[in-house]
Structures are given as C-alpha cells and as structure tokens.
C-alpha cells in the first residue's frame, strides 16, 4: 500500500464541485478543483433566480465563487481534461491535460480592454446564443477566476488583444500542457448537460424563433441577460402576452429512452412563470404538465402561490405539437384536454428541458474507471449514494442523478466527508500556512497614510486624471505618501507597497482602484506581510463605480474620484487595528437522534478521528429504518441497518446514549455544553458542534376509517405485513396524500409516492393476480424512481387521479370496504371493493423539534421541520454557527438523500472540528456596557443569536458572542442608546466618510 496523500481532486466547478472543494479545503486538505471551462460556477451562474425563495442566483453564488477562487488550499485547474487515473484509494495519480487559455492567469487583471477592442464577434454561449461576445472573453462579468480566455476557433489572430493588454497577459503560443496530480481521493461533480430540445422536433425548437429552452428563458429573465431583464421574444423583440411552458421535454420520455424525471423542471417552470409575471404583471403564463412534482421542502406552498397569488395557469396535458403561425410568428400549442385535442395560441413557448449526463460522460467514466447506470449517470446504490464503483472516487450533484441545487450542495458536502475520511490521517499535511511577521503596534501613532492610485491600464487612467488625483491626495491631512501605479494589483506593486510602508513608516494604506469585493483581500494580505494589521487598509472604488460609468465625462469623473478618495482617506484616518478573535474548539461532536441519519453522521465524524456523542431517545438505534423492509433496488434495508448499528456500537469514538434526552444546551460554536438525562442521571458533555438528526414520524390518519377498520392500513403497516408474509388480498386500494398537501399541511411528504409504488410492486411480486389501485393527486416518483412508476404501470397497477374536490370516498357497508373514486376521464364514480385499503400517510415532524429548536435557538418552518440557514446554498447549516442538520428533521426524504445529508452535515461539522481554534471576523459588533440599558432590542434583532444578555453588576447588559457575530451591523444601527458600535464600520468612520464625500473642507 502506497502512502496516502492529503489532497483531493474535485472534478467539475459547478456549485457541487465548489461546495465539496470548500468543505475539504476548510478541513485541512489540499484541493485541486478542475473544470473544462475557463471559469468555475457551472450552470447556476446562468440562472436568474432560484426557487422557492426567488433569490438572485448570482448574489448568493458570487461570494462562494470568490472564496473558492482565493482559498489558499484550493488550486483551480481550468480548461482541464482528464486522461487517465492510476493507483488506488489513498493514492491516485491523475493524468490530465490543460487546454491553453492563451491568457496568463497570473498577469491578467480582468480589466476587459482586450474584449472591448477585439474585432471578432461570436455567439455568447453563456447567454445561450441570444447575444454576442468577442473572441477573447470571460463567460460572465463576475467570473472566477476573472481571467479572460481566447476562443481559438473564433480568433482570427490579428494580435490586437496582445497590443492593448497593458499587463502583457496574452500568450498566443501557449500550448496544451500535461499535468500529473497526486491525490488521495477524488470527487466527481461534472454536472449535467441540458437536453437538446431540437430532438423533440414536434415542438419546433430551432425552427421557430419563439420556441425557446427554459435555460434561454432564464437568461432572458436575468437583468444581466441579453435583453437586460425585459421579457421579449426572440423573433421580433416584442413583449409577449401569452407564454406557454411545456414540461418534461426530454424527460419521462420512453421514445427518447429518457424515462427518468429530471427533478427540477416543474419547480423551475413555476419559478420562471412567477419571475416573468413579476417583470410583467400582464403576462399570462400557462404550464402544460403531466404531474406537478413539487415534492421538496416548501415546494407545494410555492406551487399554490403561483396558482393563487400570481395566477399562473396549470394545464394537465401532454402537448403533442407546436406550430407556428407564419404571419405573427405566434405559436399554436396542440394538446389534449379530456381526450379532446385543443389548440391554443401563444406568443412564446418555453420548453422545460431535462437533464442529461454531462457531455463526454463515457470518456470520463473510462478515464476514472467507474460504472455508469443505464442512463449514463454515475451508478450508485441506495445505501451508498456517494460512492462510485471504484473505491476512493466519490460522486455528487447531478452526475449521480438529476437533482436541484440544495440536493447537490448537501451531496457535495457528503462526498467531501467521504473523500476526507479515507485520508483523514493526512489532514493538514499539504495545506499551506503562511508565516507572517508580527504586527507592528501603531496605537497612539498619528495616522500616516500611504495612498496608491491605480491607472488600471487605461481603464481608470483613460478617464480619470490619475496624476491629478495623486497630487490632490498628497494635500489631504495625514497622507504622507502617494503614488500612481499602472496596475496596483500587480505582483511588483505589492512589493512596492510593502517597501513604501517601511520607507515612510505608513500605518494606514489606501488603494484607489477597483472594487474591494474582489481585491480587498489581496491588499490586506500585502499590508499584513509588511506587519500592518489588515484592518488598517481601505479601498476606494474609482473604476467600477467611477471611470467605467462616466467614460465620457473626464472632468466630472476626476472630481468624483477626488471626492471618493478624500472620503476614504477620512475613514482611513480613523481606522483601528482589530484582532480577529480566536475561539478554541472542543474537537467533539454531538449528534441528536440515532436513526439512519444520526448514525451515519456519527460514523463519518468518528472515521475522521473525532469523538461523538450520539443521543437517542428510544431504547434502540435505527429510527424509522427499523420499519423499512424493502427499497427500490436490490439492497436489504434490515441487513444494512444491523450492520450500521454494529459499526456504531463497536466504534470506540462513538458514545451512544439510548433512552436519553437532552435537558439543556449552552454555549456556542466550538464550545457547547450539553446536559443529558440518561438513565435517570444528568450527564454533561462538552462538544464543539451539534448535528440535529431528530428524524420525523408517520402521520396517524384520522380519515378513511383508519383505526376504525382493521383493513385500513398505512403504507408502513402494509410493509410490515408484506415483510412478515402476512399479506393476503385480492384487491388493494392505495390513497395518496393522506395528511399532506391539505390545508393543515400544504406541503408534499415526498416519499409516499415512491413508497406506494414500491409496495405495489412488492404486492405484484408476491401475488401477481392481486389488483392494485393507486389513487393519487400527482405521481411524484421523481428522478430515476420514475422507472419504477413505469414498471408498476406496466405490471397492471392502476393509477387513478383524484383532485381535492373529488376525493375518494371510503365506506364500510355491511362488511366489505367500498372505495368510490371519480374516474377523471369518464367523470363517473368508480366503485371498488378492496380487501385492503392502504393510506399513504404524511411524514410529519418530530414533536420534540420545538423543544430542541428553542434550546439551540434555531428556527422551524411553519410545518415544524427545522429551517436551514439558506434553502439553496446552505441546506444543512443553521444560521447559528456550529449547528447542522440532516435527514428527516430537515424534511421528508428518501434513504439515499438522508445518507447524503448526514455525510454532508458531518463534513460541514468537520470544517470546524478540524481546527484547533477558529479565527473569526474582527469587524463585528462591540458593546459599551456602560451605555447599555438592557432593553434587549439587539438580542431580538440578531438573526445569528450572537447577542446574549448577561447580568453584570446588578444590571442586564448585552454581550456579543464574537464567534457568532457576522458583522452586519443591524444591532448597532438599532441600539437606542448607541451602546453598540460596529468595528471597522463605526459611526465615526462612516460619518467622517459621509462628511468628506460632501465637503472639500476638513471637518472634525
């Protein structure tokens, strides 16, 4: 066995790949993040908004992109293509080639002059071909790395970009490079490819300009998209009035061989109609669908809002054809309503395209030596959803199966946990820690400010008179040095800044150049290397917010730049060095709940060397899994359960408390103290993190004669009977959505359709003559489970739809059970006399959630499930640091999803546990206790629970938990007595900035 290597290769730079990389890098591993394209970000960068919160995709993604781009332990390998993978888990040799970008990544400043001067226009793939870009380009303005690339196919080789690039970054002769990476494990997250809708020729995509794909529509909706956020149709730029969405294009389609459901399309179609209507309230949106698969957390609520609040029309019908009206280029959508063909005219048709395995998937599978399933997605099993067929190689995101963003993110964290656990011993061996000189004490010194004004090639200097600014800055109080730079961000200027700090004894540094959002970290690092505290740096944005937006007003732009620099100098004079508090971490985890999720999380923590306390209120481990006897697929859940329980019990690092209850939780990230009631004793546990895995329970129906008649069962009870061989019935009826999707619980329980199909198939397997009727509202066998739905239908299981107005009626007259169900096509009540009536009962939250949420100060949804920090990008985190979430406690989900989440929660937890001490932000709130009146306003406002009230000298004062404060400043600006100041954004600093921006004169 070769030595293990503490590095991981992550293939695919989409949101899944980025999340996996961040988790790995944050827990002490070197990460190579590879993507074929020149930038990271994947498909999410093309999205306008995200469901169900309608967040702007770029807003929530960009900070992650920047963090990944700047992470000292993440090395981006852009334009990479895998050739071969040798070795075994713990030590792989990955051969890859790097396609030439032809722009030097070190030198390119991303200023974009090259693209402005490039004479060649090409189709902009990022905007789905709806606009043009140049032959030298970045995919999108916020791209990471912000380095341009030359499209060799389009470039005519005129040499202009090289000439205009003042940074000398263009390298035409760059050639393909072969690289060999030595890594311990591999995470595959290559994402998906959109289904090519021109293959569904009946819909006219490619022939009719006003038939577009959903991703094109996404770009149309985007404010930074081709139409600047106006909803227009491509044929003539008119505002459409009637938009049709056609679902399942390339999904659930046997003719194409894509039987599976693409998971996200129903929701994104709803989202796109809502956003479109927000753009243009007169718009009529119609969604043509087969089943509305709004199965996720809060999805059904979103679905009904679309229908009720926004007036989106939903038509349950498969569209057979789309035809163009030649004169108007409008479109006739031919569909079938109640067996009758119907034509309806629209101005624009959006095809909800499904997901396909990524391009070149066969080659990828071959290079990595992994198996694919029949649809060419990565082959996985129910109980090992993150493992590929080759040990040491893990999978996450849409490459495993179609899924949405939060599922991908959670899975990515899960894959990170898996990838880390086999090389846990190598943690920290390949990561870099920078040696820094000790900080110079500048307290009590008069401010000595050095200002560096950037030309940014011609980006600033071409508009703003930079030498004039430099001369002007020199006249400002406390400025002892000022100079101009061609590029202040270049490597040689960093050296200069350090030299000038020494030479002029600078104790504050101001850079006037581009945006602090991307460049502040670089300059902070530079002054820190020269011994200055990083908070003694400030930045003035005279490019993005001045020269670029006032290109034709040289004088006014110069005046504005002066104001901006004066204003930032005024702030700089008041800057104070801040300490980044260090918080010690107790390297121990607490997992609440001993079901499948809890056990999985505990095992992952233990495998990576951390002690775990696993608290279960029942007398035995296993939770809901104890009641599951079959899965779709070949694995035996009970066998798996016992092996997991064995593994947990035998692991020395896992301390299991059965029949235990949490009495109290105190403390904060890194330093929690929890009291347990265990066997009548109180036990105190110190731990650094908490994972909430409290699970959920099956709803006990009050409807359909449940409990009144023994022939009426829940699905779980049916499963028990099937497993025990006690099943004996000629006719079985199943009713879906019992206790869910109603007024009390508007959301879908997600797993019941799959469960019903599973049990129905089992019935057919045991007794093929038994008739099975399934009464449903929508069949939500999402993702690859769709196969089993199809199988069930082909086995003669009858699926009969009902709606809320005509629910099945169950009666018991003189013995036999009678189910009356409305046949939707015939519109008659169909009587069935089943031997068994099986109710697909809702999954409802654990009643303990309320108590635990109060102890942890974390929120619940209206339904009573735990509410994560962010529905899209932080699905297993809480806003409160150090507390994580997985399994059914989050929302109903399938086994593989719970496992992925549990592993993910462990990975997230380990980003904390793996550190001896956490460094937290220095720019946080600070309380002047003398001024605090103890009114508790701040405590109520803080979303992070970072403010705690404490009794001190007989009065109640607020204290800031440094570890939890994010520095937003909401408390500071709300404090009635002015007792809270926001460090680095103090009132004095901001006011000085405001005054200086408005006044030439020095104002104190």
């Amino acid at each position, binding site marked *: 066995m070769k030595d293990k290597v503490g590095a991981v290769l992550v293939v695919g730079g989409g949101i899944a790949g980025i999340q996996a990389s961040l988790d790995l890098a944050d827990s002490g591993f070197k990460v190579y993040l590879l993507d074929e394209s020149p930038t990271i970000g994947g498909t999410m960068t093309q999205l*306008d908004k995200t469901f169900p*919160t*309608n*967040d*702007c*995709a*770029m*807003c*929530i993604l*960009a*900070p992650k992109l920047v963090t990944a781009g700047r992470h000292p332990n993440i090395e981006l390998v852009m334009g990479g293509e895998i050739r071969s993978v040798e070795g075994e888990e713990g030590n792989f040799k990955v051969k890859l080639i790097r396609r030439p970008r032809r722009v030097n990544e070190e030198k390119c400043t991303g200023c974009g002059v090259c693209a402005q001067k490039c004479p060649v226009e090409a189709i902009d793939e990022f905007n789905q071909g709806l606009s043009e870009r140049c032959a030298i380009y970045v995919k999108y*303005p*916020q791209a990471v790395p912000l380095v341009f690339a030359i499209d060799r196919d389009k470039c005519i080789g005129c040499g202009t970009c090289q000439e205009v690039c003042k940074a000398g970054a263009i390298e035409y002769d760059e050639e393909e490079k072969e690289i060999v990476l030595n890594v311990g494990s591999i995470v595959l997250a290559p994402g998906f490819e959109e289904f090519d809708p021109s293959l569904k020729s009946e819909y006219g995509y490619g022939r009719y300009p006003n038939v577009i794909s959903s991703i094109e529509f996404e770009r149309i909706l*985007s*404010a*930074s998209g081709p139409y*600047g*956020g106006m909803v227009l149709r491509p044929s003539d730029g008119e505002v459409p009035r009637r938009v049709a969405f056609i679902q399942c294009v390339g999904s659930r389609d046997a003719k194409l061989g894509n039987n599976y459901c693409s998971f996200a399309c129903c929701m994104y179609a709803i989202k796109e109609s809502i956003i479109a209507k927000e753009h243009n309230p007169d718009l009529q949106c119609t969604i043509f669908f087969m089943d509305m698969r709004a199965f996720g957390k809060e999805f059904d609520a979103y679905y009904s809002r679309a229908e009720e609040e926004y007036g989106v029309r939903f038509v349950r019908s498969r569209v057979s054809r789309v035809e163009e009206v030649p004169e108007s280029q409008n479109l006739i959508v031919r569909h079938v309503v109640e067996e009758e063909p119907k034509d309806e005219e629209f101005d624009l048709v959006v095809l909800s395209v499904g997901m396909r395995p990524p391009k070149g998937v066969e080659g990828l599978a071959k290079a990595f030596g992994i198996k694919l399933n029949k649809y060419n997605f990565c082959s996985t099993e129910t109980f090992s959803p993150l493992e590929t067929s080759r040990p040491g190689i893990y999978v996450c995101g849409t490459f495993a199966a179609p899924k949405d963003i939060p599922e991908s993110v959670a899975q990515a964290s899960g894959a990170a946990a898996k990838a880390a656990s086999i090389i846990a011993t190598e943690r920290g061996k390949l990561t870099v820690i920078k040696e820094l000189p000790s900080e110079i004490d500048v307290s009590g010194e008069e401010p000595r400010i050095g200002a560096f004004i950037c030309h940014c090639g011609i980006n600033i200097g071409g508009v703003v008179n930079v030498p004039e600014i430099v001369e002007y800055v020199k006249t400002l109080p406390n400025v002892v040095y000022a100079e101009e730079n061609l590029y202040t961000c270049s490597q040689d200027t960093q050296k200069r800044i350090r030299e000038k700090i020494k030479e002029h004894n600078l104790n504050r540094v101001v850079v006037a150049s581009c*945006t*602090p*959002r991307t460049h502040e970290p670089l300059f902070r690092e530079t002054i820190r290397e020269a011994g200055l505290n990083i908070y003694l740096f400030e930045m003035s*944005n005279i490019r*993005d*917010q*001045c*020269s*670029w*937006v*006032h*290109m*034709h*007003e040289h004088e006014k*732009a110069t*005046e*504005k730049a002066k*104001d*901006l620099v004066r*204003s930032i100098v005024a702030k700089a004079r008041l800057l104070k060095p801040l300490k980044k508090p260090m918080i010690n971490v107790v390297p121990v985890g607490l997992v609440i709940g001993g079901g499948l999720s809890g056990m999985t999380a505990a095992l992952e923590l233990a495998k990576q060397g951390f002690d775990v306390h696993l608290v279960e209120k029942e007398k035995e481990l296993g939770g809901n899994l104890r009641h599951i006897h079959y899965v779709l697929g070949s694995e035996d859940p009970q066998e798996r359960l016992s092996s997991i329980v064995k593994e947990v019990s035998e692991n020395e690092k896992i301390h299991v408390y059965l029949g235990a209850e949490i009495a109290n939780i105190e403390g904060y990230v890194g330093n929690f103290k929890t009291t347990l009631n265990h066997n009548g004793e109180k036990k105190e546990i110190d731990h650094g993190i908490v994972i909430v895995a409290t699970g959920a329970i099956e709803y006990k129906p009050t409807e359909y004669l449940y409990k009144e008649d023994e022939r009426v069962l829940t699905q779980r009870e049916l499963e028990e009977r099937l497993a025990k061989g006690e099943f004996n019935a000629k006719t079985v009826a199943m009713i879906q959505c019992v206790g869910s999707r109603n007024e009390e619980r508007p959301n879908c329980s997600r797993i019941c359709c799959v469960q019903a199909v599973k049990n129905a198939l089992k019935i057919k397997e045991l007794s093929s003559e038994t008739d099975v009727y399934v009464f449903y509202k929508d069949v939500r066998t999402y993702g690859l489970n769709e196969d089993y739905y199809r199988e069930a239908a082909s086995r003669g299981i009858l699926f009969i739809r009902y709606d809320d107005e005509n629910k099945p009626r169950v009666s018991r007259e003189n013995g036999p059970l009678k189910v009356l169900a409305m046949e939707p096509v015939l519109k008659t009540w169909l009587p069935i006399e089943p031997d068994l009536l099986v109710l697909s009962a809702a999954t409802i939250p654990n009643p303990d959630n309320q108590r635990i949420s109060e102890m942890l100060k974390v929120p619940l949804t209206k339904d009573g499930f735990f509410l994560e920090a962010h529905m899209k990008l932080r699905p297993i985190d809480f*806003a409160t640091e150090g507390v994580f979430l997985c399994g059914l406690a989050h929302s109903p989900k399938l086994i593989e999803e719970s496992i992925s989440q549990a592993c993910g929660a462990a990975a997230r937890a380990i980003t904390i546990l793996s550190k001896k001490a956490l460094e937290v932000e220095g*720019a946080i709130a600070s309380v002047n206790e003398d001024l605090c009146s103890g009114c508790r306003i701040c405590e109520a*406002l803080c*979303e992070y629970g970072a403010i705690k009230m404490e009794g001190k000298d007989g009065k109640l004062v607020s204290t800031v938990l440094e570890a939890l404060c994010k*520095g*937003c*400043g*909401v408390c*500071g*600006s*709300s404090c009635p007595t002015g007792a809270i100041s*926001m460090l680095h*954004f103090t*009132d004095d600093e*901001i*006011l000085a*900035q*405001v*005054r200086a*921006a*408005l*006044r030439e004169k020095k104002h104190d």
Partner: protein
Amino acid sequence: MTEFEPKIVGFLCNWCAYAGADLAGVSRIQYPPNIRIVRVMCSGRVDPVFILEAFRSGADGVLVAGCHLPSDCHYISGNFKAHRRIMMLKKLLLQFGIEPERLRIEWVSASEGDKFATVIKDMTEEIKKLGPSPLKVQVEGLIYG
C-alpha cells in the same frame, strides 16, 4: 450659468447593491457622476444618523440600496430592518422640511447593473427638479440641539 449638480450620498450594502454598482461598471453602463458611494456591510447597518448627517453636510439626496426583499439579504433580514427604518425616516424628514423624495431606498441585486444605473439616473433627475437641499444647517439644531 452652471446647472445645479446635486450631491447624492449612497449607502450600499456590500453583497448585492455594491456588487450591482460594480456590475454597472463592468458592463460600462453610464450614469451621472453625482453619487458618492459609502460601502456598508448590510443596508441594515445604515443608522438614521448617517442619513441626517449626510443631509446636514450638504447632501441633496441620500440613497440606501440593499438586497432584494424578501430573502436576498446576506444577513437574512437586514434589508427588512433597513426598509422599516427608511420608511419612518421619510416621515421624519418632512418635519425637518426636507422633501421625503430626497431619501430613497432601492433594492438592487448583484446582477442588476442596469437597474442600478437607472436608479441613479432617475434619482439625479428627480433631485435636479427639486433643486438644492433646503437645509444644510438648520437640521444641525434639531439633531444635536
């Protein structure tokens, strides 16, 4: 005669509005050079005192821009707080003799460079119509007196 060029102070949250303003630049969307931007981490950080001080120091308009409601806020709900606060302050401004239109709150996402530019254009136009701020000194007494 030189035209009245209003001075506008903009408080922009770091995550959405400031990023949107950057995008306007990256996309080279032009807007009038009347705004001076102060970056804060969250629109919820904007203390009413900042706004009043800006008016007192001679601002003809103040813009507060943050992440879109309801849930774009990087700090979960800071934008709601900002919104409530600005609405209250607008009423207060009237009492001070400042037209409430001089104070604006806008939601600008990181991908809305165009919107940011439009907001600045509109606001500059509107304040040009209103003319110079009626008070630059008298507020001082009210706040600090």
